[in-house]
């Protein structure tokens, strides 16, 4: 429990506004639907410095990945080429604290889709 005390994973206050700016830049202010994209991330990060995240959006040309509670929200942009076997990708990301991870897909028809998931970053300790 307590033992972990020396590790400073203090909750970082989200730069939510900054995240919205990045999203607007990506979408050009277009409307964003809730369906058409999957985002997979753990409920609790085993390690806030390396959190596995997967995104998938059939037919997407690109997917923007954001961490809304990091000092800067950008994480990665995946652009899919003609030989992509699926419009999906997995990577590992840093999270400065418990926050929402957000993915926005630009679909083939030019529309946009969004998914988000809360990932808890905990100090840890205290096993049963």
């Amino acid at each position, binding site marked *: 429990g*307590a*033992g*972990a005390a020396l590790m400073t994973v203090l909750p970082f206050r989200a730069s939510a506004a900054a995240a919205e700016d990045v999203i607007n830049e990506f979408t050009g202010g277009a409307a964003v639907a809730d369906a058409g994209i999957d985002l997979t991330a753990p*409920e609790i990060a*085993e390690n806030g410095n390396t959190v596995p995240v997967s995104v998938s959006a059939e037919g997407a040309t690109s997917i923007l990945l954001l961490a809304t509670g990091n000092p800067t929200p950008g994480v990665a942009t995946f652009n899919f080429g003609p030989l992509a076997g699926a419009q999906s990708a997995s990577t590992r990301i840093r999270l400065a604290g418990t926050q929402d991870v957000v993915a926005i897909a630009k679909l083939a028809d030019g529309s946009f889709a969004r998914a988000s998931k809360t990932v808890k970053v*905990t100090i840890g300790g*205290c*096993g*049963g």
Partner: protein
Amino acid sequence: GNWARLAAQQSLTQDQLLQFDTFGNVSLIHVTDIHAQMVPIYFREPEVNIGVGDNKGHVPHITGADFRKAYGIADGSPSHYALTYNDFSSLAQAYGRVGGLDRVSTVINAIRADRPDALLLDGGDTWHGSYTCYKTQGQDMVNVMNGLNPDAMTFHWEFTLGSERVQEIVENLPFAALGQNIFDAEWDEPAELFPPYKFFERGGVKIAVIGQAFPYMPIANPRWMFPEYSFGIRDENMQAMVDEVRAQGAELVVCLSHNGFDVDKKMASKVTGIDVILSGHTHDALPEPVLVGETIIIASGSNGKFVSRVDLDVRDGRMMGFRHKLIPIFSDVIEPDAKIASLIEEQRAPFKAELEEVIGQTDSLLYRRGNFNGSWDDLICDALISEREADIAMSPGVRWGPSILPGQDITREDIFNVTSMTYGEAYRSEMTGEFIKVILEDVADNIFNPDPYYQQGGDMVRIGGMGYRVDVSKPQGERISDMTLLKTGEAIDPSKTYIVAGWASVNEGTEGPQIWDVVESHIRKQGTITLEPNNSVEVAGI
């Protein structure tokens, strides 16, 4: 009191404890969370076990008289003593110690006499928790458990032996080491050492046992000790494994789980096709299975105190019915199995003198289990504050650790039973009041988050030298208030720095004396331990 005297008059026999009308065509035997308790002990079940969200008011989150009422358990009865906390010290005098792997073996042998091909499944937290286990890096428990001939096991605290030692043991295990959620951390692929499942053909039934290790190992325990591995609940992969074994003809799917009870309930609601979940980690002992959809969940207690027997009728590829008994191991009633008794003796012999050394006595009941401080924790926190000259002490909310009755000696073995671990260094550091609150909020969310998948590990961190109020119904950041430094009665100042002593840090390189040495030194100075009731935590929002 009165109940104890009544109870003492009742006689209890081995035949009664083992009585079971054999049913169906398959038997499962479940043991879990033994925490290296090879010999009989006392173990008081929790007084406080708060359920939140959908689990509020449901087992295992009812205790004491409410629990007895829910299961029709008579006051003063053997089940009262085994399953609830009230009147513990006097009932313990009447009914005696519980557990002992030689007695567990007798029960297993009796079930196998009824059903020779019964499956014995160990839910993990086996190679951790005692002096001899610490000194032999788990070898004592491996030797004794091998003597019981299990068919499979899964894992939690075992990994705190370090991945190299785990690998060394597992490579030589004469039974399956399962974990569908144990992955290679680098390439995110199933770890080869731990297969996801194993098939057994028993009673003409094709049975698949799927392992589920503790999902939050790298969070609850030091991940630097097993950096090669990644865990997680991975319920999508669990579903894939269930589908895979069904496609291969499994007629019965058993999940040997170390998820903890509420996580198992949620997993059972999301994954279809599991017939039986044998649940571990949260140390709950339930006299009846809990049904979620078409899945039954069995909780078999801890510390060698119980064995579950589950008989199943499997026909036409379906589980048609079950019969279950949670067998309490009353060690004065169940005859020890001589073969295992001598195996246990062999493990303990080299350490006899150290184990038996009397460090002090206690006038108070010493126990741990419960959401907040047990009296063992109070004693450990007192030791940290006085031996490490601290303002505040923190002790991890682990669920293991047997009890000591008033009037008993405290031996070195007893101290190790509540402190033994491979990262027992007692740190001493400075923390601001604000940071202490962050810790309490973080740990509180790991137990009181209404979504079980966000609950990460143990009970609430135990605190010495400081009082606080917790509202379990609030979200993270708003649960903890009224933090008070007990020695001055002043409110904790967020900007002020306090000296905090604790142990079991998950951080690599933590320095300090081992916690068992700190506790031993404190008990020696006290001679006889007398603890005042601890009212320093006010719980609201239940």
